[in-house]
C-alpha cells in the first residue's frame, strides 16, 4: 500500500432518475420531467421562434440563413440515416439535385404551383435516386460511396453539355408566397424530420436497419430480406434529401448545376462527423455549427470548404465521437474524483 499522496481517479456516475419501458419514461417529479423534456424542447422552441424573432428585428438576411440551416440539417440527418444502415454516401447532392430539378421542371415548364412541386419533386427525386443506386446495394459499401460521388459530378457535366433543363444557366422558379410560409415550412420540416427519424430508428424497423449497418450477413441469417430493407432506407433518406432540394429551388427561385455541387455532398458529412453520428441530434448540432460558421466566415470565400474538409478529417482522426455525444454524456452523467483506496 502506498503511503503519502492520495491518489484519485475520475469516476462517472449516471444521474439515475428514470426507468424506461418501451418508449415511456416513468418519472415521478416535475424536476425529472424537466430534466428529460428540456433538451428536446430547446431546439423546438429555438427553431420555431427564430424566424419570428429575426423578422421582427428586421434581420431578413439571417432569416434566410435559418432556411439554409433547415436544408443542411435535413441533408445531414438523411446522410446519417444512410450511414446507420451501412450505406456510406458521398453524394447527398445527387438526391438534392434530383429533387431540385424535378420540382423546378414541374414549376417552370408545366407551371405547377409550389404546394404540388414540392411533394412531387421529393417523390421523384427519391425514386430516381433509389433506382440509380439500387445496383450498388448488393456490393460492398465502398461501391455505394464511389458511385454516389461520381453520379452528381457526371450529371453536372451531362447537363452542361446537352443544355438539358436550362443547361449551364438553369431554370427560374417561383418563390414561396411569402416569407412566413418559406420559413415555417422549412423549420417544420426540419423538426418533423428530426423527431420522425428518431422515432423511426427507435422502432424495430430501425433496429433491423441498424443491425444491417453492423453485420448484414447475420441479419440475412435471421430471415430478413436485407436488400429490400436497404432499398427502403435509401428511399426514405433520398426522399428527405430531395425534399431539401425542392426547398432550395423555391428559396433561391432558381435551379441549376449548383444543386449538384460537391458542397452539398460534403457539408452533411462534415456536419455529422463534427456533431456526432447515430442519434440525429449530432447531425442537427453539426449542421447548425457549420451553417453559422459559413455565414460568419463569408470573407474567406472558397477557402471555407477547405476548412470544413480539414476539420472533418481532424475530427474523424481524433475526436471521432463528435460533439453531441460529449455533451450528452456530461448531461446524463457527472464526473467526480474518487479516492483510490
Amino acid at each position, binding site marked *: 500500500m502506498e503511503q503519502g499522496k492520495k491518489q484519485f481517479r475520475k469516476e462517472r456516475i449516471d444521474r439515475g432518475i428514470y426507468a424506461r419501458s*418501451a418508449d415511456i419514461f416513468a418519472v415521478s417529479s416535475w424536476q425529472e420531467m424537466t430534466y428529460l423534456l428540456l433538451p428536446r424542447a430547446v431546439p423546438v422552441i429555438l427553431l420555431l421562434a427564430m424566424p419570428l424573432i429575426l423578422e421582427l428585428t428586421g434581420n431578413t438576411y439571417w432569416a434566410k440563413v435559418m432556411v439554409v440551416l433547415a436544408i443542411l440539417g435535413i441533408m445531414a440527418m438523411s446522410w446519417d440515416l444512410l450511414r446507420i444502415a451501412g450505406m456510406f454516401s458521398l453524394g447527398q447532392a445527387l438526391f438534392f439535385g434530383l429533387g431540385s430539378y424535378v420540382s423546378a421542371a414541374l414549376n417552370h415548364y408545366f407551371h405547377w404551383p409550389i404546394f404540388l412541386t414540392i411533394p412531387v419533386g421529393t417523390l421523384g427525386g427519391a425514386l430516381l435516386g433509389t433506382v440509380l443506386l439500387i445496383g450498388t446495394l448488393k456490393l460492398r459499401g465502398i461501391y455505394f460511396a464511389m458511385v454516389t460521388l461520381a453520379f452528381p459530378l457526371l450529371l453536372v457535366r451531362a447537363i452542361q453539355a446537352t443544355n438539358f433543363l436550362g443547361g449551364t444557366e438553369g431554370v427560374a422558379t417561383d418563390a414561396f408566397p411569402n416569407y412566413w410560409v418559406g420559413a415555417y415550412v422549412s423549420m417544420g420540416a426540419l423538426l418533423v424530420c428530426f423527431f420522425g427519424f428518431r422515432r423511426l430508428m427507435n*422502432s*424495430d*424497423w430501425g*433496429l*433491423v436497419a*441498424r*443491425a444491417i449497418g*453492423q*453485420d448484414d*450477413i*447475420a*441479419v*440475412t*441469417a*435471421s*430471415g*430478413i*430480406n*436485407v436488400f429490400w430493407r436497404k432499398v427502403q432506407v435509401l428511399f426514405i433518406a433520398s426522399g428527405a434529401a430531395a425534399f431539401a432540394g425542392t426547398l432550395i429551388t423555391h428559396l433561391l427561385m432558381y435551379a441549376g448545376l449548383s444543386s449538384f455541387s460537391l458542397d452539398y455532398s460534403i457539408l452533411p458529412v462534415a456536419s455529422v462527423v463534427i456533431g456526432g453520428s447515430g442519434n440525429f441530434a449530432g447531425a442537427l448540432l453539426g449542421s447548425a455549427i457549420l451553417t453559422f460558421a459559413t455565414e460568419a466566415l463569408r470573407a474567406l470565400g472558397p477557402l471555407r470548404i477547405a476548412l470544413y474538409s480539414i476539420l472533418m478529417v481532424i475530427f474523424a482522426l481524433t475526436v471521432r465521437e463528435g460533439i453531441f455525444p460529449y455533451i450528452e454524456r456530461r448531461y446524463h452523467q457527472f464526473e467526480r474524483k474518487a479516492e483510490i483506496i
Partner: protein
Amino acid sequence: MSTSPVLQVEGITKNFGGVRAVDAVSFDVYSGDFLGIIGPNGAGKTTLLNLITGFLKPDTGKIFYQGKNITGWKPYKICELGVARTLQMVRPFYHLPAYKNIIIPLCSPRALKLSGSKYGERDDIALDYLEEVGFERDTAVPYKPAGILPHGYVKRLELARALAMQPELLILDELFSGMSMSEVASTMFVIEKLREKGITIIMVEHRVKELVRVANRLLLLNFGQKIVEGPPMDVVGSPEAIKAYLGTSEEVEQ
C-alpha cells in the same frame, strides 16, 4: 413420421475456382430426423450448409424442401419456409444488448406471421427465447451488449436467434465449438426438447460423442464427398470413417 422427405439434396456440387468444395452430394432428411454431419476440417460441411440455406448457389444439382425446389433461392425466402441456421463464425450484433439481438429475427416475415407480435411485445418474447436457451432471466445478462458476453453465452445467443424464427428445420453449424462440458450438456438438453416438439435437426459437429447419443442418422463428409451415411454406430465404426479421421494403417506406420 411422414413418408416423403422434408429435405432432398440431389447431386449438388460447388466449385471455388479450381477447388471442388462439395462434390455431387445427395441425401434425404425425413421429418423428425436428427441428422449429424461429421467430417474432418475442410471437408466441405459448412459449404454444404451454405448451399442448403441459400447463402451459396450450387453449380449443379437440386435441393427440395417440403417438395418445393429451393435451388438458388435467396436465404430469406428459404427462412420463410421454416428453415433456420446458426452461423459457424458467430456474429452477434456487438453493440446491441443481447435481447435486442433476438428482436431482429422476430421481425422476419415468418416470425411476424406466426407470432403476430407488435412493437413493445417483442422485448418479452426475446427474453423468453433467451431463457429457453439458458440465459438466467432476472439477471442483467440479457441486457448486456452482446459483444462482452462470454463465448458460451454468445453461442447460445446464436441458437436463440435461430429459434426465434420458429423453424421446422433447424440447421446447427458447429454450435458446440468453444463451449465447456456443462454448457454442451445443457444446450444438448435444449436441443433434445426441440426434437420432442417435432423439429427436424441437422447438426454439423466435431464432438462426435454427443452426436452419436442423440442423432438417428449420421453422414460422413470428406473432400466434399459423401463417404458414408447411416445409423450413428455404423458410420462411426466404418472403415471409411476411421480412414478419414485417422488415416489407414500404412499411413500411420509411415
